[in-house]
């Protein structure tokens, strides 16, 4: 009897375990899916077919998955940029730490980020690696840090005790390399004198543009003219923001004019910015519009006026019918940038551009052509038929007299730079990657909350500027995404408190 009971109990226990185990697994999966603890980690090491984390794409910028014969590690090699990876998660999370393990034998600047908006396509990049800073951290004196901003000073340069003191007294002759330093440098132009009269931008511009100007004892004044070309469906609101340094001080909005039929161009609408009593200094206009909007007129009372980042003039045959008053003419721009990037957006805009008289052939639509300017003064970019997007890391003027450099000695580091080119380095929120032999690991914290995207299907990006031109490669061996949100209990408590 005892023997039978033992057997029976043993069998019951075994069956009980077999029955309970899947239930426990199910409960654990349920808690994970609900992100009960607030955390979810997804990792991809490129050894198997991708599931929740995709491979890097597009395929013309990366290789297929490869395996290192020596250490049997799988990886994808990146030879173009930017490249993207999609990650699917079951819940919407608020933050994510993106950890990339990679080999980078020689490319100086690599950034990683998140696609913060898919229409228009906007990527928010963060530092991943900057070898110029990594070298300076070894060779130069101790860094000076203020919050997340760090200043590195060459041993033979004048030394400053704080970042603020440095920014107040940047030596005019110094060269300051910046990396993710977005706070604008407020350079007082001691020789500036206001002038009467108006300055008119002689070209029609397409889409979002940024301008900078300088005022002293005068009102900040600019009048814009906009035409909605309605080449694509949908509304096209217009926003002009005015910044003093990195502080937004004024905003003007124009809603869509209501004409939304495709191909039906609207009449020109004016927008005036007039601000009095502002202190001396640099002010920036950010014109935030879609590529359906043409800036047909821009008149300012300031005589120092430049465009920053990118300029796209459209006084071309392609836009002749779309915007009234547009007639084909050549564009002449002046820039202080050490290089220009030229992009012909359509086959019809392919042409030969001249940079300081040197011919630059644009042979392929949409392809960025990089041209080093190699001049200490202003470079002249001449686009015979317009409709070419010109990008720089400096500023453009439309006439010699209107040029000024709002950033002074500060300029973003480029892949052509070496540490010896700089007296100071100024950067934000960067620490060098951890090294394990040739493998580097860097974690980039990113915020998802508030982004206008599907937070269950997130796209991450990696850029290594001009990696294709430099013929460098990055081997990515592992990506780890650690998603975080508030713990379920905390969310529940917050909701209950909110209800009460």
């Amino acid at each position: 009897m005892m023997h039978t009971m033992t057997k029976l109990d043993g069998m019951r226990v075994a069956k009980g375990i077999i029955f309970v185990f899947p239930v426990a697994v199910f409960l654990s999966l349920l808690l994970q899916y609900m992100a009960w603890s607030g955390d979810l980690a997804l990792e991809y090491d490129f050894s198997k077919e991708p599931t929740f984390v995709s491979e890097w794409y597009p395929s013309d910028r990366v290789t297929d998955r490869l395996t290192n014969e020596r250490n049997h590690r799988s990886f994808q090699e990146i030879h173009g940029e930017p490249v993207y990876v999609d990650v699917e998660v079951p819940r919407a999370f608020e933050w994510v730490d993106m950890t990339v393990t990679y080999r980078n034998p020689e490319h100086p600047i690599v950034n990683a980020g998140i696609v913060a908006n898919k229409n228009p396509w906007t990527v928010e990049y963060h530092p991943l690696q900057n070898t110029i800073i990594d070298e300076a951290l070894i060779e130069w004196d101790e860094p000076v840090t203020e919050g997340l901003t760090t200043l590195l000073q060459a041993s033979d340069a004048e030394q400053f005790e704080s970042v603020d003191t440095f920014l107040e007294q940047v030596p005019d002759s110094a060269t300051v390399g910046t990396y993710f330093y977005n706070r604008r440098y407020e350079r007082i132009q001691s020789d500036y004198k206001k002038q009467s009269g108006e300055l008119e931008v002689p070209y029609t511009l397409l889409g979002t543009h940024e301008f900078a100007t300088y005022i002293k004892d005068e009102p900040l004044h600019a009048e814009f003219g906009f035409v909605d070309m309605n080449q694509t469906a949908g509304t096209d609101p217009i926003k002009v923001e005015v910044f003093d340094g990195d502080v937004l001080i004024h905003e003007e909005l124009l809603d869509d004019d209501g004409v939304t039929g495709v191909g039906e161009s609207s009449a020109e609408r004016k927008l005036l910015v007039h601000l009095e009593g502002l202190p001396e200094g640099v002010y920036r206009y950010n014109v935030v519009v879609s590529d359906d909007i043409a800036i047909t007129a821009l008149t300012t009372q300031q005589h120092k006026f430049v465009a920053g980042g990118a300029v796209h003039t459209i006084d071309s045959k392609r836009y002749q019918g779309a915007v009234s008053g547009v007639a084909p003419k050549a564009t002449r721009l002046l820039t202080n940038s050490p290089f220009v990037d030229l992009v012909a957006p359509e086959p019809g805009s392919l042409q030969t551009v001249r940079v300081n008289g040197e011919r630059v052939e644009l042979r392929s639509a949409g392809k960025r052509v990089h041209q080093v300017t190699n001049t200490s003064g202003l470079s002249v970019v001449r686009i015979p038929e317009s409709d070419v997007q010109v990008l720089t890391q400096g500023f453009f003027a439309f006439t010699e007299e209107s040029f000024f450099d709002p950033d002074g000695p500060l300029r973003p580091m480029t892949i052509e730079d070496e540490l010896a080119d700089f007296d100071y380095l100024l950067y934000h929120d960067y620490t060098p990657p951890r090294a394990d032999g040739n493998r580097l690991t860097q974690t980039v914290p990113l915020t998802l909350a508030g982004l206008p995207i599907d937070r269950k299907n997130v796209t991450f990006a990696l850029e290594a500027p001009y990696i294709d031109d430099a013929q460098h490669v990055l081997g990515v061996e592992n990506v780890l995404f650690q998603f975080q949100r508030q713990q379920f209990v905390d969310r529940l408590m917050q909701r209950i408190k909110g209800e009460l």
Partner: protein
Amino acid sequence: MKKPFTIDAPRFQELITFTFRVLLFWYIIAALLEAVLPGFVTLSIDLDLFLWAVILLGVLQFVTNTYSR
């Protein structure tokens, strides 16, 4: 003295059958859940391996049943 739990052929067969049925039930649940909530199961468990485990148990159960007749 309490005798240790021992397992004979019929009990082994019963245990295999029971395990097979439990796993088959949970595989169906898992596949349905995965169809409705993608990632619910496959975030942690490889469904293909799960299916192979069920098939192997099914075969084992079939073999032990046939052998015992």
